[in-house]
C-alpha cells in the first residue's frame, strides 16, 4: 500500500462583509481555536484542512477573503477557482444581512456556474445583540436554493458541520474516477481526481 496524502482536493471560498467573522469561522475549523482580537484580512489568505468523508480523504483548501471593498479586485479573481462558496453574515449586523444579495450577485458574476453555495449566519452565541431573525436567514436561503446554518466560531456551533456539509455536497457532484497509472500527477489539478499509486488496491 502506498501512502497517499489525500484522494480529493476541494477548493472553498469564504465571502461576506468585513467583520462578520469569516477568518474566525475558518480558524475555528482549521485550528479549533478562537481569537477575539479583530485583525482585518489583507486581500486573500488560505488554510488547509484534510477531512475524511465516505472513506475518502479530502483535502480542503479554504480561501479566506477580505470583506473590505478596497480588496474587491483581488478577492473576486479567486471566485472562479472555488468549488464551494460560504457566504457569511453577522446576525448582530443588519447591514451584513442586507448585503447578501450583493454577494450573491458577485458569485453569479465571478464564480463557476455550478459552484456549491452555502449561507452562514455567524455570531449566533450573541443572542442579546441579535438583529437578524433565524427565520430571515432560512427564508433567503430557501429563495436561492442554498443551505443555511447559524454558526458561532466563538462557541464552536455548527462550524464543522457547515464545512463537512459543503464538502459532502461537492463530493456528491464529483465524478468518480478510477485511479490509473503511477504517474498520476498529484499537483493540485491531479489531486482533485482520485489519486492512488499503481500498487494501491
Amino acid at each position: 500500500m502506498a501512502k497517499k496524502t489525500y484522494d480529493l482536493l476541494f477548493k472553498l471560498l469564504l465571502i461576506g462583509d468585513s467583520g462578520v467573522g469569516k477568518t474566525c469561522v475558518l480558524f475555528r475549523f482549521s485550528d479549533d481555536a478562537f481569537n477575539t482580537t479583530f485583525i482585518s484580512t489583507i486581500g486573500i489568505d488560505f488554510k488547509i484542512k484534510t477531512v475524511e468523508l465516505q472513506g475518502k480523504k479530502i483535502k480542503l483548501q479554504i480561501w479566506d477573503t477580505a470583506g473590505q471593498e478596497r480588496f474587491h479586485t483581488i478577492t473576486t479573481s479567486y471566485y472562479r477557482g472555488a468549488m464551494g462558496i460560504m457566504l457569511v453574515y453577522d446576525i448582530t449586523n443588519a447591514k451584513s444581512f442586507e448585503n447578501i444579495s450583493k454577494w450573491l450577485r458577485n458569485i453569479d458574476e465571478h464564480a463557476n456556474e455550478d459552484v456549491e453555495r452555502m449561507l452562514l449566519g455567524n455570531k449566533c452565541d450573541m443572542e442579546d445583540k441579535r438583529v437578524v431573525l433565524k427565520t430571515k436567514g432560512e427564508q433567503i436561503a430557501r429563495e436561492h436554493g442554498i443551505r443555511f446554518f447559524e454558526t458561532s466560531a466563538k462557541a464552536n456551533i455548527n462550524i464543522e458541520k457547515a464545512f463537512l456539509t459543503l464538502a459532502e455536497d461537492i463530493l456528491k457532484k464529483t465524478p468518480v474516477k478510477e485511479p490509473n497509472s503511477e504517474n498520476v500527477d498529484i499537483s493540485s489539478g491531479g489531486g482533485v481526481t482520485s489519486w492512488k499509486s499503481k500498487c494501491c488496491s
Partner: protein
Amino acid sequence: MEFGEESSPALAFEKNAFELTVEDVYDISYVIGRDLLKISSTGEEVSDLQFRIVRVLEMFETLVNKYNLSLEEMKMERDNLRSELDRIMKDGSSSGQSIQTGGPNQLVVDLTDPNRPRFTMQELKEVLQERNQLKAQLMVAQEELQLYKSGILPQAEPALVEVDLTPPAAIENILLQYENSQGSNHTVIRGSPVRMP
C-alpha cells in the same frame, strides 16, 4: 479774533487730499463762500467767478464721494476674502491630517505621512500570491517532515512532493482538470513516486 471762530471749517484745507470726506468739501465750500461774500460787496464782476467756484466744488464733492465709496467697498471685499481664507485653512487642518479630497474621485496624499498609500493593487496582489505560495510550500515541507518522522517514508526515497501554487489563473486549469481529470499545467515539485517496499 476772527481766526478762532472759523478755525474748525478752515482745517479742511490742511488735510491730506486722500483723507478728505464730503464733510470736508462742505467746510471748504463754506469758507470759500464766506470769502466770496466779503469780496462781492465791492462789485458785481465776481459773480461769474462765484459760479465757477461752485461748479468746481460740486465736481470736487462728487470725486471725494466716489473715492470714499470705492475705498469702503475694497475694504469690505478684503475682509470677506480674509475670513474666507481663515475658514479654508481651518477646514484643511481639521479634516484629517493626511488625506483630503482634491475633487471627485481624487485623493490628496500628504507626502510626509509615513502611512500614506504607496503601493499599487497589482503589487499587493503579487506579494499576497508569493506569501500564499510560500505558505503552501511550508505546509508541504511540514507534511513531509511528519512522514519522515513517523517512519512512513524511507530516507532513501524522496517523497512525492506537491506544491499547489494556484494563483487565480491556475485555479481555472484545476477546475478544468476537475472536470476532465487529466493533464496538468501546474507547478509540481516531485521526486520519485512514493512506493512502499
